């Protein structure tokens, strides 16, 4: 249905003013939305990007000392022993530097409980690695 707005009268003036106000708000919202989308896209590692990664890893490993490689393998095995949830938790804290307070909030635990869980995990890995050496 079409609405003819002559720009005369209270109602039409109000509509025009509101439309102008709305257009500015919508444009800003769209700009923010697109900026956020672009940010997410940059952070995401697309499937095409994962292609050359193993080659880089191989080059990197070749330069490492044998001792470090063995330790690294044991660490990987130790990490593989953990459950998916434990691994994500550990990696989030160690690699992504997510604080205990944030992790506690995500998991619905207390700060102390999260810290204890983290140190228990570290101990678990240490014991596994010592056993394998």
């Amino acid at each position, binding site marked *: 249905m079409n*609405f003819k707005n002559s720009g005369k009268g*209270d*109602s*039409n003036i*109000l*509509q025009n*003013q*509101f*439309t102008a*106000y*709305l*257009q500015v*708000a*919508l*444009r800003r*919202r*769209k700009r923010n*939305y*697109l900026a956020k989308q672009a940010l997410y896209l940059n952070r995401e590692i697309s499937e095409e990007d994962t292609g050359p990664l193993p080659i880089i890893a191989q080059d990197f490993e070749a330069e490492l000392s044998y001792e470090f490689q063995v330790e690294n393998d044991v660490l990987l095995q130790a990490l593989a022993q953990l459950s998916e949830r434990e691994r994500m938790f550990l990696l989030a804290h160690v690699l992504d530097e997510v604080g205990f307070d944030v992790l506690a909030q995500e998991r619905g635990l207390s700060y102390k409980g999260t810290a204890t869980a983290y140190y228990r995990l570290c101990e678990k890995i240490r014991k596994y690695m010592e056993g394998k050496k």
Partner: protein
Amino acid sequence: MMNFKELFLQAKAGDLQAEEAILERYQPLLLKMALVNGVFDEDLYQELCITLIRCIRTF
């Protein structure tokens, strides 16, 4: 048909039907704004609908 001012004041007072009527009137604008490179973005459309409702409250 109710004029825009009456409709707007009702929507501002929290009348859901009036809000819906305004949303319907502005739908062509929202749909146009929800196009990104000629493709309709459903999430963006939802965000714009929320923006419209907010604008009714804040205008």
